[in-house]
């Protein structure tokens, strides 16, 4: 705004004359309250000089200037162009004056506050008159009202800033964590202060962490009502409090979801076995060595050795042998096989979560497999009733029937019963089928098992 621009240029000029920074000049204003006469004289002198040299504009001149500015600025030119839509920013112009005298404070940071004010035309005239006749200046008096109930005269301390024609000011404070209030008013050269308006109260934050480390205990009043608790806002939405405000740690939040995993114990084992990739082979190799020491001469290369090892290793897996298999000499193994000896469950040999502890078959493409099916067939009179183990068997029109089953290893009895159509005679046939398979280990005619 034009005011501010003027103010800044004035300030710059002044400071360049004095060889001081703007901040230093403000500090000078702060000392002004108890300044001695020489300082006041010098200030007066400078003010006069300022007026002479710069021909400082009065408030009216400033207003006139700003009106001209407004007439020539870009925004007003926009009125010649098609009218902007309703409510656009270009349409709105802040008024030059609000016909009120107000002062507001804002906190910028722990050491700086910002003051902004507006002066009504009537007060502006008053200021101008006072300036002319009584040598009064517009000043900003800043009060430190920390921890006091301010009544206008009981501030902890205060300082003045001569603000000239400005309408805002950044105030530098030497302390932080204080309550600040300010008054805008006229101060005569004799020190009389006529306040025009008083600002709001602002609290500046502390500039660092608190140095207080002592414990401060809260006074808990047993008679206190529940809805007077401090975190009244919090417990409304906290699912651990019920409608009456009672706390319950058992309740879970609404977003609580139970996680489901379908991992079994053996899968977790398998995962952790992967941390020890070589271990399984190491154990197997050592078991072979132990068997060798037991004078069995099992090398795993000949047919009978493989057969023996294969017979032993499932036993080891099954019985979860001991914390130390140094017991695993030949006699112990034999006793284990016969079920006489039982070892404490240990760790190393429980690795059998998967079947890879067995000796791997040679990796060749040659294969040889056998399956077996069983077909049972018979005949009787077409109108008879035939049953197998009590279950009816359907007959073909000519009185024959056929049953077909897969045939695994084992014994399978078949009890057939036929009843004549006139229910006067029944005949039974019991037959039994047994299958046993003996798969021989592969024999390499040339070369060795890999």
């Amino acid at each position, binding site marked *: 705004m034009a005011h501010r621009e003027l103010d800044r240029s004035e300030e710059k000029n002044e400071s360049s004359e004095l060889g001081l920074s703007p901040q230093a000049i403000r500090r000078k204003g702060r000392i002004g309250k108890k300044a001695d006469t020489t300082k006041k004289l010098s200030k007066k002198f400078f003010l006069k000089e300022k007026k002479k040299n710069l021909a400082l504009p009065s408030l009216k001149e400033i207003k006139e200037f700003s009106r001209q500015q407004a007439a020539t600025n870009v925004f007003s030119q926009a009125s010649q162009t098609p009218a902007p839509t309703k409510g656009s920013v270009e349409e709105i112009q802040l008024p030059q004056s609000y016909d009120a005298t107000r002062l507001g404070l804002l906190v910028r940071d722990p050491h700086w506050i910002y003051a902004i004010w507006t002066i009504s035309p009537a007060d502006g005239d008053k200021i101008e008159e006072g300036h002319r006749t009584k040598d009064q200046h517009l000043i900003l008096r800043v009060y430190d009202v920390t921890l006091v109930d301010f009544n206008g005269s009981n501030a902890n301390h205060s300082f003045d800033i001569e603000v000239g024609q400005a309408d805002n000011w950044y105030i530098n404070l030497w302390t932080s964590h204080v309550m600040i209030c300010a008054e805008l008013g006229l101060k005569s050269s004799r020190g009389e202060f006529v306040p025009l308006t008083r600002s709001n109260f602002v609290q500046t934050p502390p500039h660092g962490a608190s140095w207080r480390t002592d414990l401060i205990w809260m006074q808990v009043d047993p008679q206190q009502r529940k809805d007077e608790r401090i975190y009244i806002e919090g417990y409304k939405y906290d699912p651990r409090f019920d409608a009456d405000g009672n706390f319950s*740690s058992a309740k879970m939040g609404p977003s609580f979801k139970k996680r489901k995993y379908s991992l079994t114990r053996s899968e977790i084992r398998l995962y952790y076995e992967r941390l020890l990739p070589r271990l399984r082979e190491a154990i197997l190799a050592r078991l072979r060595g132990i068997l060798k020491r037991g004078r069995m001469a099992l090398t795993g290369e000949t047919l009978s050795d493989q057969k023996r090892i294969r017979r032993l290793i499932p036993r080891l897996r099954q019985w979860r042998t001991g914390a130390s298999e140094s017991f695993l000499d030949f006699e112990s193994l034999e006793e284990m096989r016969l079920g006489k000896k039982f070892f404490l469950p*240990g760790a190393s040999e429980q690795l059998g979560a998967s079947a890879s502890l067995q000796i791997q078959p040679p990796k060749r493409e040659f294969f040889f497999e056998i399956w077996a099916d069983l077909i049972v067939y018979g005949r009787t009179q077409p109108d008879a009733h035939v049953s197998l183990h009590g279950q009816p068997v359907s007959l073909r029109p000519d009185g024959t029937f056929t049953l077909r089953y897969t045939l695994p290893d084992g014994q399978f009895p078949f009890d057939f019963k036929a009843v004549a159509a006139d229910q006067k005679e029944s005949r039974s046939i019991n037959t039994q089928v047994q299958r046993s398979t003996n798969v021989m280990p592969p024999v390499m005619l040339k070369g060795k098992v890999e």
Partner: protein
Amino acid sequence: MRIAIFAWESIHSISVGGIAIHVTELACALERKGQEVHVFTRMGREDHPAYERIHGVHYHRCPYASSQNFIEEVHNMCRSLVNAFFATENYIGPFDVIHAHDWLTSNAVLWIKQVQSIRTIFTIHSTEYGRCGNNFWEGQSAVIRQQERQATQGVDKVIAVSKALRNEINWMYNTPEEKTSVVYNGVNPWTYGGWVDAGAIRRLYGIGPMDPTILFVGRMVYQKGPDLLVEAIPCILRYYNNAKFVFVGEGGMRWSVQDRAREIGVEDACRFLGWQDGWRLTDLYKSVDVVCVPSRNEPFGIVILEAWSSGKPVVTTSVGGPNEIVWHDVTGLKINPHPESVAWGIGTCLEDFDHCQWMGANGRTAVETAFSWDVIADHVLDVYTT
């Protein structure tokens, strides 16, 4: 196989840190596997005999002259170990393998190797670089680094306790990849079995029987990050206002951590117990809900194994060893070394208590599968023979 283990500490002589437990348990496990194990360690108390057979393991305690200079004292110890080794060998016959633990006994192995061809194994538990908080310091530290480099170069096989440590050695001491192998640390899970009255243990420390309790075990140093846990406490108390935090361990940061807890007003939720071991620590493990390992750098993290052995889930930062052995959300939670992340991990555990217990049970399975001393001994034997 006749095995000689060189260590500067063991449970049956002087017990200082983790190596004592490692060496003693490993020796026992190897003995159970049917090997003949001789442990050469320094003399503990004056009334200890120079030779003793404990749990089947032969212990040789070697006296040595102390010195103001720590390096010189270590050299004295190594000379004594070498002397005892040759004396034993003259008496019972040649050894098959020498296994040294950490740089403190590495010189003894190198000296023996100069005069005799024998298979040598060197287990490195941590590097000097890591012990200095990932710094290459000068002076004594530089000498120790030189020792470690010579040891890794001179022996036949180097065992590192985690992949992270192996990578560190390969990078720092230029050890060949095929020479180094990883054998994780072990734990004796049966020590942490059994039932205790958790309420009674908690009452001992002024904790309510149903309070969610979180345990921190470790030296109170920057590396282990107890300050991260303290900073996370307010976030947890906001949702679980009866949560309690038990800190076990001593160290340079202990008082600053305690002051910080007081400063942010959570001291009433913390219990600083100082250094604990034995049944007190075991009972604590068994009676808490979650074990938190907020380390900034961790070569392996035996605390995790101990927590799993007692069936508790871990909330651990994803650095070094923990990153390799923890299965996220199945045996524990992996977090970042940051207070908010710590709070998230603990809060997630406390939120779903069934899942929390399930994770703890899985941890026990993991320990029994892959981290019991029998398994570790099998693995070490594999390194001996290949």
